């Protein structure tokens, strides 16, 4: 379900871009109206296969891109998102890169002073490797998690869910 939001936001972004922003008012409401039921069917449980091999994943979080096609009315586009994926023992963990403060993209070891944390460049937000937000920095909660799995040796990414590693 939460993926739905991402897709729709993406649609907003694309439509609000240069040139097409005038059309947004017309297309968007119709698109929403027409497409909602479609999303619901599709949003359940589909795992997306990525091009990254499970063997390539280490204990160091790695960027794993995944793409899906988004159909909104007659407007079709390919959306690419990514997750930070790492191994904890032989368990795979995938975290969303979207900062829980105001939504910037966080990077692993993006701040030299914090080589083992996620860093958000917008307001210096910090997270531990398991996604736990570091107190005293702006984020209000831990990074979300993705379902993650393997298929034929490749990483698969599924639905977004609240962080289950942090209590």
């Amino acid at each position: 379900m939460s993926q739905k939001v991402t897709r729709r936001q993406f649609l907003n972004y694309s439509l609000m871009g240069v040139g097409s922003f005038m059309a947004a008012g017309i297309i968007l409401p119709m698109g929403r109206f027409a497409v909602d039921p479609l999303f619901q069917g599709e949003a359940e449980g589909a795992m997306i296969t990525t091009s990254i091999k499970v063997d390539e994943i280490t204990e160091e979080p790695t960027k794993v891109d995944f793409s899906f096609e988004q159909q909104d009315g007659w407007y079709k586009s390919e959306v690419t998102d990514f997750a930070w994926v790492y191994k904890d023992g032989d368990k795979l963990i995938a975290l969303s890169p979207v900062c829980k403060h105001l939504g910037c993209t966080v990077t692993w070891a993006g701040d030299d002073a914090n080589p083992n944390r996620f860093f958000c460049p917008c307001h210096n937000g910090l997270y531990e490797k398991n996604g736990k937000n570091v107190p005293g920095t702006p984020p209000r909660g831990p990074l979300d998690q993705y379902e993650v799995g393997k298929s034929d040796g490749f990483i698969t990414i599924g639905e977004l869910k609240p962080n289950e590693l942090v209590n």
Partner: protein
Amino acid sequence: MLYNHQDLNVLKDEIEFVDTAVIPFAYGDMNEDPKMHASDMEMMQMITVHLEKQFKGRLFITPAVVTVNGITAVVEDYSEQLRNYGFKKIIILSHNVPQVEGTHGIQLNHIPLEDMSADMKMSLIDDEVKDTMKQIIAVWNNKK
């Protein structure tokens, strides 16, 4: 953040954090090289989508301002409005950066996208995005 109702709701409470406005500024002339302008606009649209994704929590991307005959009056007024709204930094992102007082210009490169494969486009745009991000961070770091 974008100019839509959800983001505008957040914006008014979080203006302290979303302190930077980006105005995409483009030429839409028909009489001199419209194909180049079209290509520029396409590129700018892709760049703004990426920027928004990276820096959503600190950037407000305004609707694109399109002009003809190099007229810059609208961007000047718009910058003024944005400043009065509470933005601390105003960035004009353009292939033709106008001189507007109190704003930072980010000059984009003209890249003829028309005969390019999708992959090639993506990689060029990617470089341009990285470059733009660096410049935005530089604006943030120099405390003017």
